[in-house]
């Protein structure tokens, strides 16, 4: 099967009066296949979020493009959005809606067939153990409960592609683990997953391939083994530092 995500020389340029033109994303290209978890690893401000936002059609690339599930992010943005589930670490919920209402709302907005809607919502409620608080307004839920609802909400329309932007930031260890376990399960369901993080252990645990990104540019792409071979370092932290210092080029 060909790639589900194909980013082709994506560029995002901002103008900053103080610093002049700023390249937030500088000619980024990568591919991601079904059943694969692709990691974007980089420090804060490296361009991870901007890249993912371009994939999710939230931002328009200054140049270059990306094709997701066969659809172009610029020309077929609506179809792209129907194919993706998007979750970032600081995503919130509508406080005055209940988890059930939230799930139904997003299923409908994503044009999930009405006939299968209740069945789908109920199965997610069971899967994420939301039953107990399915009818409680979201503002009354704990952080962990909210995060479960957020994940269920991101996948309610059963998208082929999942985009996670630092999804574990701000979560306690147990909730983070639930999320990571779920992401692994999605891989088993043959979803295509892009996952950005600056936590090395998460990248090590999950990612089939990792792109190390800094100052808008991809420094290297490969599996953990390939990156180890490339840099001669064992630990991801060291690999990361070596790449940053050498500024070496893509190998995959």
């Amino acid at each position, binding site marked *: 099967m060909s790639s589900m995500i194909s980013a082709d020389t994506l560029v995002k340029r*901002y103008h900053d009066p103080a610093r002049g033109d700023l390249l937030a994303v500088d000619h980024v290209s990568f591919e991601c296949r079904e059943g694969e978890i692709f990691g974007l690893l980089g420090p804060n401000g490296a361009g991870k979020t901007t890249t993912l936002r371009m994939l999710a059609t939230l931002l328009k690339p200054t140049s270059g493009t990306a094709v997701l599930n066969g659809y172009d992010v610029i020309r077929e943005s609506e179809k792209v959005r129907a194919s993706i589930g998007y979750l970032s670490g600081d995503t919130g919920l509508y406080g005055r809606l209940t988890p059930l209402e939230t799930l139904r709302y997003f299923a409908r*907005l994503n044009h999930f067939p009405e006939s299968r809607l209740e069945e789908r919502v109920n199965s997610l409620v069971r899967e994420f153990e939301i039953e107990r608080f399915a009818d409680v307004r979201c503002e009354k839920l704990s952080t962990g409960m909210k995060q479960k609802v957020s994940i269920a909400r991101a996948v309610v329309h059963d998208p082929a592609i999942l985009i996670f932007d630092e999804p574990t930031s701000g979560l306690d260890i147990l909730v983070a683990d639930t999320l990571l376990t779920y992401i692994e399960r999605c891989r088993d369901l043959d979803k295509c997953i892009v996952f950005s993080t600056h936590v090395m252990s998460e990248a090590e645990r999950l990612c089939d391939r990792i792109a190390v990104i800094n100052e808008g540019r991809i420094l290297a792409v490969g599996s953990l083994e390939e990156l180890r071979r490339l840099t001669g370092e064992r630990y991801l932290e060291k690999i990361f530092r070596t790449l940053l210092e050498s500024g070496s080029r893509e190998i995959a």
Partner: protein
Amino acid sequence: MKSRDVGIVFRKELLDLLRDRRSILATIVFPIALFPLLMFGSSRIREVGEKNLSLEVLAVSVQDATEELEARLQADRSLAVRAVDDPRAALSRREIFGAVLVSDPIPGPGEDPAPVTILMDDTAERSEVAADRLREHVESWQAELQAARIESIGAAEGLVRAVEWESVNIASEARMAGDSLGRFMPLLLLFLLMNPASVAATDLFSGEKERKTIETLLTSKADRRSIVMGKFLTVILVAVLSTLLFLASSLFFSRVGAVPDDALMATLSLSVPSLLVVILVSIPLAIFLSAILVLVAAQAKSYKEAQTLLLPIMLAALLPAAASLLPGIRIDSIVALVPIANTALAMREALVGNFPVIPLALVVLSNALYAGFVLTQAVSYIESEESILGERPPTPGDDSAGAAREATLYGLGTLLVFYYLGVRLQAADLLSGLLVSLWGIILGAAILFAVVKKIPGRDAFALRAPRPLALAGAVLLALPTLFAAHGLFALQSLFVPVPEQLFEAMEKMMDLGNGSLPLLVFAIAISPGICEEAFFRGLVLGRYREARLPAWKAILFSALLFGLFHLSIYRILPTATMGAVAGWLTWRTRSIFPAMLFHTLYNGTLVLGDTYGFPGESLPSSPLWIAGLVLAAGLGVLAITSNGSESRSRG
């Protein structure tokens, strides 16, 4: 945009809002409770006021009264009888609060009864109290006179009536209406429309960012336009609902008699047709204001920021409404085009039972147009990237747009100074006032800006030597522009009649030189040609060009600003037309001098026309004239454009 998605977002937002206590309060509880509360409040205040008044000694006067009546009034310790020359004037100056006018002498039995007039001013509550007391005295006096006559001659009642009293209210109708609650209804309605709409706009747009739900929403399949429209409909519904609830509640409570004061109610015609008209004019306004509120709320990253931004907007929106409710302002075809004020006035008319069809139609139409415009602006802003992510990535040209804004604001600031200072100076002495305004305020402001901003004069005022052809073009264009502007003015006055005072003011201008033509030409032609051009075409247009505004925008805005400086709504169109041509001249030639020459000739023609009867006043009628003007205009444009491209290639 898909109506299905709009519907999904709309239903969710409605459900969400209805669970918000603030929204319920602002949209439903407050509008319903406001009317009875107001009524209760105002009647309480009245009661307290009247209680105090009943203990007060009130000054009154009697004119030509018989000793008998005067003695009665003197005996009343709650009245102080005073002698005044003109009771009506004294009454409206509030020196007295009532007066009795009696025709002297009292006619005999069988003759017509003598008229007795009680003067009062309905807008003063003391006067109402005083008039009541006077009435009692007159009535008991009348009864006594009658009883005496019946006793002496035994005649029928009609024949023995000695006096017939009537009460006359000296307050004008406008003053009466001014005191009634009706004056405040439009303001209340506007407030009730904006209050819940701003709560909703804040929640639906800024709230989406504060709760960090916006990304999720925008990564759903629904397109942005559908999402924005769904939210928009919610805000509009809330605004309209609140207005409807208030009107329905007013109608209900006034019908069940919760209004304690008949007099208060009389000026408020809460009839069904009135309310329907009020609703009709409110709905486009609700959309317009909702769009503004949404546009503003969408720029805020949080509730707090949204509230900070929205409050001044709401106050600013209430101001034109409040100003329009001052006595003497009535709705006409011009006012009907002024947003917000037009609706307030239309509501006011409708509430007192007037339905002027054409102004009302204009109100609805113009409001619908404004609503459509702001709505598209709001939709396209929200569709843009910066609105989405809360942060606003600066785009190229942002800082230069700031330069354009700065120039516009500086122009408006100078306008204020001109308005407060220049107009006063001109009122004191027209000639010196005019010269000080031009050379001091306008040119002074232009130079001040250049000095403070350290812009070299050459750049600030486009002080470049023009090519001779450019000057020729300016000369050729002066007369055609003058006639075009006059034609537009004449056309405009078909729809908007120009008040006499404007012509009088123009005439006064022409008498400036005290008979000295050179002085007149200097004051009205040369001075404006230099000073106004330096400011509007030199400074303002120059800043716009610096800000890389497109030519049409730069010329239009500077021309409008120039039109505003003439401080008359009737003159904006012709003066802005002239300003646009001058602006175009400067834009093309990159030199201020053609525009200065053009302006001087334009005004000079007006002066000479007035002095020598040159046909500058009337429209050209002969085909030869028109052909000549068109030819001159064509040659002028040609001269400028050929010159313009040369200078551009050089520069």
